[in-house]
C-alpha cells in the first residue's frame, strides 16, 4: 500500500486526539491569575449579630479557606453540607464571603443548614468579589500563612476534591 493512502487516516487520528483532549477540557474553567499572588485585602462587616468588622489581616499566620457563597446560589446549597462536614474535622478554618446577598437571607440559611464558617463577611456590592476575580459562586480560595493565594476551586467542593486536592495542599502549607 502506498504511504499516501495513509494520510487521511493520519489526519483522522490527529483530529480524534484533538477532539478527545478537547472533551476533557472545561472551557468555563478560567485559570485565575491570582494564584501565588497576595490575596486582596478586605475589611467588611460579618454576618454575626451584632455584626463586627473583620479584616483579612486578622487571618495572617494561618492557612485558611475563603469560600465565596450566597444564599441565592444553588451550587452553594449543594456544597453547603460538604463544608459543614469539613468544618467539623477542624482541618482548616473556613471563612465565608457572602457575595451580593441579603444578610438576612444569608443568616437564615446558616441558621437552617448549619454554619461551617468561622465568620462570614458580607460583600453587598460585589466589590470584594471583583477584587478576587469571582465570576461564578461558589468559589474557594486556599490562602497560606503569608496571605498568598495558593489555589482556587471554581464550583462546589466535593468530598473528592477536598480529599485529593485541597486537604493535601492545606497540610503542605501548614507544614511550611
Amino acid at each position, binding site marked *: 500500500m502506498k504511504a499516501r493512502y495513509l494520510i487521511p487516516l493520519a489526519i483522522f487520528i490527529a483530529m480524534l486526539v484533538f477532539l478527545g483532549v478537547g472533551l476533557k477540557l472545561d472551557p468555563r474553567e*478560567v485559570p485565575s*491569575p491570582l494564584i501565588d499572588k497576595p490575596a486582596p485585602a478586605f475589611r467588611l462587616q460579618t454576618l454575626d449579630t451584632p455584626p463586627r468588622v473583620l479584616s483579612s489581616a486578622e487571618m495572617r499566620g494561618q492557612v485558611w479557606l475563603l469560600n465565596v457563597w450566597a444564599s441565592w446560589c444553588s451550587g452553594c446549597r449543594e456544597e453547603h453540607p460538604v463544608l459543614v462536614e469539613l468544618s467539623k474535622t477542624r482541618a482548616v478554618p473556613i471563612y465565608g464571603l457572602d457575595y451580593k446577598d441579603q444578610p438576612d437571607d444569608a443568616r437564615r440559611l446558616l441558621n437552617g443548614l448549619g454554619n461551617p464558617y468561622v465568620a462570614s463577611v458580607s460583600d453587598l456590592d*460585589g466589590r470584594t468579589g471583583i477584587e*478576587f476575580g469571582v465570576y*461564578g459562586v461558589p468559589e474557594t480560595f486556599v490562602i497560606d500563612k503569608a496571605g498568598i493565594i495558593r489555589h482556587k476551586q471554581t464550583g462546589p467542593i466535593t468530598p473528592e476534591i477536598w480529599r485529593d486536592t485541597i486537604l493535601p495542599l492545606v497540610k503542605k502549607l501548614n507544614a511550611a
Partner: protein
Amino acid sequence: MQLASELRCLVCQNQTIADSNADLAVDLRNEIREKIESGMSDAEIKDFMVARYGDFVLYRPPLKNTTLFLWVGPFLLLAVGGGILYVALKQRRQRVAEPELSHDEQALAESLLQTDQTKETT
C-alpha cells in the same frame, strides 16, 4: 464604552461586558465607568481586569508565548495549504504534458491511421 466591548463577560462567555446583562457584567461596567471617571487610561483599566480575571477577559488576546500559536496558526495553515497546492499543481502539469513519441511509435501511429482511412473510403 468602547472598552467594555473588548472585554469578555465571565458568566456568559461568548458575550462582551458591553452586551451582557449578567449581574457581574453590570457590576464590571459600573467599575469601568468609575475608573474612567477617575481618569484611568484604557490600558490601566485593562491591566486591572487582567490582574483579576486573566487574559481570558480580553477579546483580543496579547501576543505571548502561550498565545503564539493562536496568532500564527492561521498563517501557518495558509502556508501549509499553499505549499500543498503548489506541489499538487506542479505534479499535475508534469502529468498533463504528453511525452514525445519516439520515432518508431510515430511511424506506427501513422500507418494505423492510414489503414483506418483506406478502410473507410473502400
